[in-house]
């Protein structure tokens, strides 16, 4: 295999894995649920996209044909991650989870908590 294909695939693999790790680190370390929700839904989706692009490039050059079916998973994750985040945020609002003290605009959060569940 040529050198530059290996270079592209390696860069995408390491970048994607670092983003996945940053997302999980944020899930483990951030203070409250609403900040914890941001880490996996953004960083992990970007990391998965990088890993799947690396897989597309590698399979295309190994097999000699254009292999795009990994992009299905990328598209599916890009569509479903905001839906999951929205449902989880709605559930957390309904369960009245704690908000960290440094959050700005706590009046809006209090108003949102007092509304009934849909």
């Amino acid at each position, binding site marked *: 295999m040529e050198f530059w294909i290996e270079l592209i695939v390696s860069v995408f*693999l390491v970048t994607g894995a670092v983003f996945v790790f940053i997302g999980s680190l944020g899930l483990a370390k951030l203070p409250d649920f609403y900040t914890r929700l941001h880490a996996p839904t953004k960083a*992990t*989706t970007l990391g998965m996209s990088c*890993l799947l692009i690396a897989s597309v490039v*590698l399979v295309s050059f190994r097999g000699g044909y254009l292999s795009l079916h*990994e992009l299905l998973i990328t598209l599916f994750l890009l569509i479903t991650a905001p*839906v999951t985040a929205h449902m989880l945020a709605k559930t957390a609002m309904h369960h009245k989870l704690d908000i960290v003290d440094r959050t700005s605009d706590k009046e809006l959060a209090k108003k949102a908590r007092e509304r009934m569940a849909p």
Partner: protein
Amino acid sequence: MLSIAATIATTLVCLSLILNLWRLFKGPSRPDRILALDTMYINSIALIILFGIFSATTLYFEAALLIAMLGFVSTAAMCKYILRGDLIE
């Protein structure tokens, strides 16, 4: 170079799976545990893709797609269940 990069990526993904497992066991509330499970299935898709790169086949793609679809459906069902106490009303 490719094998070194794939080894580094596999190590990082396994470390993030351990972090997700820690959050799944510790998580103070139920939405935390659901979020940890959601992240765990996304990371397991990454692990399956990396295993396919190691073993040079595309045989595991269907498994990854199945995990993605069923993971989304199960997360949506769990959210709906602890939001309303019922799935189909």
